[in-house]
């Protein structure tokens, strides 16, 4: 769950060396990129994509997948990955090499994309904490989707940073657990991603 900290530590950590001679790849300039991958919705396609990341030592920060065009059997996999820019360029090319992959778009490289994530956050507590949780939820436009006398489950949609922030605020109030979908993303404007 310690995602916010995890991300920070990732960004300060030295780049995982791509070769025994890491100096060849310059400084540890780790970037976080969102890749949108359109694939044939066939058995094993997710295993191919995930296996590529594990087999070649790339990072997955978040991953979402679902069918997006039923008639054409197309699924979209949105992957948030981190690494030095040259590794991220490699990741795109390696993904394109997979036979069932139609298209890979590096939304971060292209810029100007909308990215959203949905999270459910369970908070337990009574008295003042309970009021505070509700007040903050209202400020963040989180919805209450389950309530008991001593708990709430909030539903929150937004950019990753907003969700991270909400979770941090809930921690001292009585955070129990979190379930997040990972990022879904799309380019802005009339053209397809």
């Amino acid at each position, binding site marked *: 769950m310690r995602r916010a900290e995890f991300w920070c530590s990732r960004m300060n950590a030295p780049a995982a060396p791509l*070769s*025994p*001679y890491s*100096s*060849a790849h310059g400084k540890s300039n780790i970037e976080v990129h969102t890749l949108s991958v359109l694939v*044939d919705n066939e*058995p*094993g396609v997710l*295993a*191919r994509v995930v*296996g590529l990341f594990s*087999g070649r030592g790339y990072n997955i920060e978040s991953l979402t997948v679902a069918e997006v065009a039923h008639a054409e059997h197309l699924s979209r996999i949105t992957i948030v990955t981190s690494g030095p820019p*040259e590794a991220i*360029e*490699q990741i795109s*090319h*390696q993904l*394109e*090499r*997979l*036979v*069932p*992959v*139609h298209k890979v778009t590096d939304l971060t490289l292209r810029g100007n994309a909308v990215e959203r994530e949905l999270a459910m956050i369970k908070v337990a507590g009574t008295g003042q904490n309970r009021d505070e949780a509700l007040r903050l939820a209202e400020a963040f436009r989180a919805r209450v989707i389950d309530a008991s006398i001593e708990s709430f489950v909030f539903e929150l949609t937004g950019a990753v940073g907003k969700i991270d922030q909400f979770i941090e605020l809930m921690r001292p109030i009585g955070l129990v657990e979190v379930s997040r979908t990972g990022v879904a993303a799309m380019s802005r404007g009339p053209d397809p991603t």
Partner: protein
Amino acid sequence: MTNLMTGAEMVVRALQDQGVTTLFGYPGGAVLPIYDALFHQDRIQHVLVRHEQGAAHAAEGFARSSGKAGVILVTSGPGATNAITGLTDALMDSIPVVCITGQVPTHLIGSDAFQECDTVGITRHCTKHNYLVRQIEDLPRILHEAFYVAQHGRPGPVVVDIPKDVQFAVGAYAGPQNIEHKTYRPRLDADPALIARAVKMMAAAKRPIFYTGGGIINAGPEASRLLRELAELTGFPLTSTLMGLGAYPASGKLWLGMLGMHGTYEANNAMHDCDLMIAIGARFDDRITGRLDAFSPGSKKIHIDIDPSSINKNVKVDLGIVGDCAHVLRQLTEAWRGRSADQEALAKWWSQIDKWRARNSLSFKNSSQVIKPQHAIKRLYELTKSRDTYITTEVGQHQMWAAQHYHFEEPNRLMTSGGLGTMGYGLPAAIGVQLAHRGSLVIDIAGEASILMCIQELSTAAQYRLPVKVFILNNEYMGMVRQWQELLHDGRYSESYTAALPDFVKLAEAFGARGIRCSDPASLDAAIMEMIDTPETVVFDCVVDQTENCLPMIPSGKAHNEMILPGADEEEIEQAIDAAGRVLV
């Protein structure tokens, strides 16, 4: 005419329609229906190997020497897992192989049935693509698509896993017409703007070099022809990786020899000091580059490759050109015509190269007492060069000596395991080559350790009366391991000596082959001639110097201009190798 047939019949029909003439395989429970369908036809010759790894390597040898896809047929479970090494080998060296595996019936998948394994799961990482055929309706399309994917773009192995019930099911067959994958369409021609930039860089170069690889051979004989034309037009020096040997003739005046860890002094120094490197169908493998941060520091680099992920993978290049080598070479040659290199600078560059060449880095001290392995290869070359000869190798010192001292004039003449480095590759590959070229002389240059890894295939050679020649450089050591232990581990020869070798002459005879042994340099030529003149399978036990090292050598972690040359004394070797290099492979 009805096109209804069983899945098993479809497999055979699809192979026939794809022009397959030779199939390497081994039967088992989950492929019995396909073997039954094979029984009723005679257009495809099935070659029964003795181990599925042998089938895969034989298919590789067949494919690489003929330019066609190699095809193998194995059963589920152990049949599939035994083929894995060969599939991985084909993936690393970009060899088109279609592997058909049997699978337990669909209703048993996932139940840990007898001889069940998750073939598509296991082979996902060692194939270009793979398929599990769940219903008969998909089978014809998948079979033809498998051939398309294996042979188009950067070639590679494709697995088609067919459950037994699908083999029995009846469906409508469709031929290979109009089979094109819906998304997989590799780019063949390069962007003309990039070609123009490349030509400009070439015209401005003062110290250029062509660095060529197996991609040129994979692109077909036309690519080799175009490479020769472009090289002659420009007058640029040319070096090649192990996998690219033969694309440019070793007798050509621009040839610098192989580059890399055991490449020549002139090739490696020219790579290090060049100001323009034109990489074609090569992938900047670590055996080639040596120490990456000291790799050719002052050069601009052009990289031509059909696989976009090869570009900027290990080495950042200045100009990446995606396309098929043959197409791009044609574009480059056409764009270059009428232009000329900087002749004055080029003459200076060549005189520098001649100085490096004068070091004669492939020299060795010959002996009249014991056969030197390099000498054995040189004699083998001299005695076979005027014949229609194909060479395969196993992996190790003998492989590097073959690359250094056997000179290849044509593409598709050297079959070797470059990327994966698979001991045991050479003999089954030679069987595959011989089946593709019945009348040719096919020689597996082997080591006594490697050959034992797939020695069972002698039985296959005997069954099909294939006159392959196994030329073993026998030094009783895993020679390359011994060499590294000598250089990097103070001569502690941990487990690299084979204490109980078979008598290779008797072993040959036991398999129905001919055995020849030679340990005397004076009788080597006569013994090699006897091998060549024997019209059956021969195992030649060439007893060589046990402690010879394969030089020159770039130690791991060193740059191209830090080579150990023949004649280096202990102190020089000590200085050349450091602790940082020892942790590398």
